[in-house]
């Protein structure tokens, strides 16, 4: 049974058809590379799966059960998490504080509930170790590399026991060395049985980690096939429309 099934999803913004009858499935432990030109509808699709938008028509299934959510928190309860490149971290807080932001553990102290920093440090150190990341829990995010930031953001999803992680352009605007760091993070998540949807404009990154590659063109899914049966040339053709469908 597939972890996520997207069945005939369409989305209209007024007269704009951002998505038209998009269907695909992702298995546990699988990485789907989602590609497409600017405005193809990738972010819209992510936002629908993450509960930010409701689809105009079509259905979503998580572990075979139909889901219908109204708010991002509903999606999070189903184990769907999104990792944003820069949006979701507070530079002025530590790595541990960011991992636990909004769900800080607390302990009793003289009748007051205070934040349990020791537990936050311990748990986030474990998560960083699990991701084999060199991130230290007490460092300020401001001082971190792009790869370390990504590790912090991904640790948030691990903490939430996510089943499906979507990453919108995680490798945009970071250095080459950090890109491989992020790709390693994605492989570790995959190895732990999570399903990952990776959105990227960078062909090499997608081919490095994706099991399947899906291509959106003007709101329609024009391809969805195993990465090893495709090629960067073919995908480029699909994105631009030089190749109609595959």
């Amino acid at each position: 049974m597939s972890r996520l099934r997207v069945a005939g999803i369409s989305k209209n913004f007024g007269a704009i058809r951002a998505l038209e009858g998009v269907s695909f499935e992702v298995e546990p432990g699988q990485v789907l590379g989602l590609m497409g030109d600017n405005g193809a509808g990738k972010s819209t699709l992510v936002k629908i799966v993450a509960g930010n938008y409701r689809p105009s028509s079509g259905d979503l299934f998580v572990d075979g059960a139909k889901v219908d959510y109204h708010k991002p928190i509903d999606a999070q309860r189903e184990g769907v998490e999104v990792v944003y490149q820069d949006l979701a971290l507070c530079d002025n807080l530590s790595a541990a504080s960011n991992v636990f932001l909004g769900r800080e553990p607390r302990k009793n102290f003289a009748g007051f509930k205070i934040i349990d920093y020791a537990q936050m440090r311990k748990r986030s150190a474990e998560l960083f170790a699990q991701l084999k990341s060199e991130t230290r829990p007490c460092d300020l995010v401001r001082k971190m590399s792009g790869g370390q930031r990504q590790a912090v953001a991904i640790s948030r999803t691990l903490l939430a026991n996510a089943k499906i992680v979507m990453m919108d352009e995680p490798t945009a605007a970071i250095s080459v060395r950090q890109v491989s760091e992020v790709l390693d993070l994605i492989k570790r998540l995959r190895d732990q049985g999570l399903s990952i949807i990776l959105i990227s404009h960078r062909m090499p990154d997608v081919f490095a980690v994706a099991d399947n590659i899906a291509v959106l063109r003007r709101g329609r899914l024009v391809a969805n096939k195993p990465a090893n049966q495709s090629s960067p040339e073919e995908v480029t053709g699909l994105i631009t429309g030089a190749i109609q469908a595959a």
Partner: protein
Amino acid sequence: MMTAIEHAIDQSQHSNLLSRAMNFQAFWVLIAALLACLTLSLVTDTFATERNLFNVARNFAFVAVIAVGMTTVIASGGIDLSVGSTVVLTAMVISVMMYNGNPFWISAIAALSASLLVGFINGVLIAYVGMPPFVVTLGMLSAARSAAMVLSDNKMIWEFGPDHDLLLAIGGGSIFGVPNPLYVLLVLAIVMTVVFKWTRWGQHIFAVGGNEQAAVMTGIPVNRLKVSVYMFSAFTAGIAGILMAGWLGSVTTNLGQAMELTVIAAAVIGGANLAGGEGTPLGAVVGALLIEVIRNSLILLGISSFWQGMFIGCFIIIAVGFDRLRKLKSTD
């Protein structure tokens, strides 16, 4: 596996984080204030007198109390220009009520409620209606002072009914030679230092100030948080208003005029970052102390007090300049 040494490093980095809380700026400001005190006690024989020190301690406490509230607002990424007007409004509410024969406690509760209402209106307009804090609190600066004038018919009040002496004792008196407002400040500063670090409310304020969008996405109730922050700021202004009424023994409608500038200056000098996400109660206290010591020194040295604004203005700009410098260094 984390070795003991790594753990120790981690720990020390964490306590660094704690003292980053009172980052370098507050430390240097304290040094500056102490140096100024030292110089003054050497060059004048009026500074280090018990009477003068008492006055300095009391005067700075009023500004510092509000600066703690202001730091909270600034840390959340906002600003509150209405604190000076909230001071006069609360002072007016308590004096009018006491003048009309109400006991101190009831009048004080009414006055603090008035200040909380001011903060609530500010907060709702900023958080839920989405108006810029600068504009909302600028409007409130005008509105709250006007309300105080209406309330008192713009008259001075110096008779506070049956609890007259109690009000004067609370605001102007002292315990063990330490002026009462200083105790209030001490409690407030300590409590807020703990709250900033150890409660979700405190941490979430810094999260909102650091990256509001991130805070929203992690499910922090950002709007409610913002309302509470403006209410807290107004509350500190209310406390100061009541204490000032007792200290002065009379209340006029120009009480607290332009006080917001001194308060913001104290917070910023103490390390609050106007862009949000940084600031400590201790910094606010130290910033207020430096301002008061300078004000006092101008008086003692016989320099025209008209220079005071020049000093405060320069200090704000220097403090923000320091902050820039640090940022530049840390991004290198």
